Structures are given as structure tokens and as C-alpha cells.
């Protein structure tokens, strides 16, 4: 997470120089941008598509599209936000292709408010993640977030995992700020509810 925040918050002037040079055809400058953001794009793509092969394709296609369309990047938003928008669109396209039976849209307002109301209220252990090994924890987190509707998952990943602001998330997803806020709250509450079974305090009991 530290890396991401550092990347995103880095001095804009240096990034603007790289973007301008890349726009002028300097591939070495573009490669620096690739190295700066490829991990973020991969993570976002994998979270949305839930498929490794698709995520690899998204990384390639998103960067290529960004390169091809640098002329249209106005510099009003951050390069990273613009790149995320391209990557999210590519990822959603692949997700729709793979699961055509389910219409997937970021605009879908999937469930009612009730689905996000806490059903189980239980205290967690003081450091719940330490009950599990790193690989068990990754598995739990991956499986849990996979169960969220794509629209919620995407907002949560951009806001809470990648550290974009609400406004940047709204810009990247072409959603309104209230829509982002509503999805974020529901995503957070639903994830909390689903993680309960792994992390809740079990005094004197073994975990499953």
C-alpha cells in the first residue's frame, strides 16, 4: 500500500514530463509509466475479472490503449486516474464476455439497502489477520471479495485497496460521487459481514 500511495502522490511535474515525452513518441518514457503503474493495473484487473489470463490481457491492452490515445489525454485528471478508467473498461469488457448470462454494469444498483444491514454483530480478535498464515489470508480475502457484485467490488478496490479518492474513483468509473459513496459503504459492510465467520472472536474455541 505504501508503494501505491507513493506512486500516486509523486510530484506531478515529473509525471507530466514523462507523459509529454511519451506522447511525442518516446517509448522509454512510456516504459517508465508502465513500471510505475503495472502492479496497480494488474491488481485492479484481477479483482474485477477474477481470472488470471484476463488480467494479463487487460494489463497489455490497457497500456497499449493508453499509449495509442495519449494525444487525447488532456492532463485535467491525473494520468493514473485516466489509465485506471481504461483498465476498468477493458476488465469489464472481458468479464462480460466470460459471463454473458449476467449483465454486468457499473451502474447496476444491485441489491437493496437491507443487504448491507449488519446481520451478525460480533467482536473480532484484536489482530484477526494474525490467526491465519499469509497464504490462507490471501485466499480468504480473495474468496470474500469475489462474492461481491462487480460494481461494489470495483469501487472498493479503487477506493480502499488502491487508495484513490472518492472524486478520483467517480472520475475513473464515470459515476457520480454519491453513487461511489453508496457503493463503497455497502461494499465495506458486506465484506465485513462475510469476514465475520473467519475473524470473530471465539473464546476458548479453535477456529474452523
Amino acid at each position, binding site marked *: 500500500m505504501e508503494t501505491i500511495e507513493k506512486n500516486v502522490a509523486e510530484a506531478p511535474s515529473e509525471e507530466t514530463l514523462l507523459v509529454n515525452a511519451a506522447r511525442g513518441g518516446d*517509448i522509454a518514457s*512510456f516504459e517508465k509509466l508502465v513500471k510505475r503503474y503495472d502492479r496497480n493495473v*494488474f491488481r485492479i484487473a484481477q479483482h474485477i475479472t477474477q481470472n488470471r489470463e484476463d488480467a494479463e490481457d487487460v494489463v497489455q491492452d490497457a497500456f*497499449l490503449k493508453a499509449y495509442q490515445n495519449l494525444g487525447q489525454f488532456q492532463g485535467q485528471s491525473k494520468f493514473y486516474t485516466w489509465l485506471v478508467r481504461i483498465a476498468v473498461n477493458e476488465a469489464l469488457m472481458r468479464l462480460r464476455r466470460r459471463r454473458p448470462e449476467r449483465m454486468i454494469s457499473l451502474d447496476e444498483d444491485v441489491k437493496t439497502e437491507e443487504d448491507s444491514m*449488519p446481520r451478525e454483530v460480533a467482536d473480532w480478535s484484536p489482530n*484477526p489477520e494474525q490467526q491465519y498464515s499469509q497464504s490462507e489470508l490471501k485466499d480468504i480475502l*480473495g474468496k470474500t*471479495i469475489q462474492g461481491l457484485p462487480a460494481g461494489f467490488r470495483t469501487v472498493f478496490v479503487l477506493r480502499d485497496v488502491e*487508495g484513490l479518492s472518492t472524486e478520483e474513483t467517480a472520475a475513473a468509473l464515470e459515476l457520480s460521487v454519491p453513487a461511489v459513496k453508496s457503493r463503497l459503504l455497502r461494499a465495506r459492510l458486506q465484506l*465485513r459481514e462475510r469476514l465475520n465467520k473467519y475473524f470473530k472472536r471465539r473464546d476458548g474455541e479453535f477456529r474452523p
Partner: protein
Amino acid sequence: MKCSDFLKELSDYLDNTMDAKTKADLEEHLQWCHNCYVVCNTTKSTIEIYRGTEVYELPDELRGRLHSAIISKCECHKKTGDAAPAKTEAASNTKSGK
């Protein structure tokens, strides 16, 4: 304040993006409502755990292959205005390595 009102404000509370008055009202509610206190703490933990865990890492070897594929496509686009030939080659390279 009702619990449902507290929940509506929970995200802004956790992100600390609210005015002092609303924040004070929420904290007053938290003092006596154990359920909201637990939901607030566990939601905060949920965010922190996701933030602190790299669920999907990009392995160095794959990263290298993706870089080569991206750069060769960009070079192809620069020369011809089209990325198609490099795309096919790069995509097969990437997948054959798995």
C-alpha cells in the same frame, strides 16, 4: 440518533470526511451503542486488512513478459500505426510461459 442513521454516515466517519458536529454526534452514539461500536471497529479492520494484504501480486517473471509485450506493441504502433502483428506474438509469448 438511530443505528440506521449511524450506518449511513459510517463511511464518512471512517474516512474522517465530515464536519465536527456530525462527528461529535456519531461519537456520542458510539459511547452507548455496543452494536454500532462493534460494526464500526470491524468495518475499520476490514478495510485495514484488505489494504495491508497484497491479494494479487504480480510475479517478477510475468511482469517482465508483460513489459516486453507492451513495449513491442507500442513500438509496432509507432512504426505502423497498428499493433496487430506484435499483439499476436506477444500474447502467445505471454501465455506459453504459464
